[in-house]
């Protein structure tokens, strides 16, 4: 699936998007996998209260299932307007 990062999450991880092969069942499982990879992921995902997630472009929760999902995006709380 494609994993996208925005704002300071993108800056900490260093790339705006990447294709990831994963068998993670939920968003939380995916985060656990990513955090174990490299320090830059640990830096981005260390405080989940500061993060929001969208699955296939819809805001959701960290326990959202990933079966059949094409796109997951991580970003800080939104500041539009």
């Amino acid at each position, binding site marked *: 699936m494609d994993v*996208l990062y*925005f*704002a*300071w999450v993108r800056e900490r991880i260093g790339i705006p998007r990447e294709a990831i092969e994963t068998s993670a069942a939920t968003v939380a499982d995916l985060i656990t996998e990513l955090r174990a990879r490299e320090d830059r992921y640990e830096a981005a995902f260390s405080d989940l209260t500061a993060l929001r997630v*969208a699955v296939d*472009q*819809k*805001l959701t929760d960290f326990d959202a299932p990933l079966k059949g999902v094409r796109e997951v*995006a991580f*970003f*800080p*709380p*939104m*500041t*539009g*307007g």
Partner: protein
Amino acid sequence: MRISVQDTPFDLGTETTNFAAGHRDMGAIVTFTGVVRDLPDDPLEAMEIEHYPGMTEAALTDIAEQAMTRWSLGDALVIHRHGRLVPSEMIMMVATASRHRKDAFEAAEFLMDYLKSRAPFWKREITAKSADWVAARAEDEDALKRW
């Protein structure tokens, strides 16, 4: 109903005139405009607005459709810019049209409250000293509870 996510400036007068035209039965038009403001201590050189192409349009359409359902609106308009803006430039506008003003005012407030916290935009303030992401405010999230 029209949603526009764009990097180019918009003309508030033209947009408002076009929005109001052709609604003979709408007695009230409310518009709100968000403007880049300077910082008091550290002059703002620019505000950069990042967004999530695709999801942004979908989220704004969903929010506007909710407003059209909840209030008696004849029409709604949301324009939001992204990219690099300087102080006094207009960031975004919403407009609502209804037969009487109450629905137009309330729906415009609803659109703004949801747009601030549920549409995927992120602002960064660039000054001579720093480039900081704007932090979301707890009161913006709290504002959703009244709806």
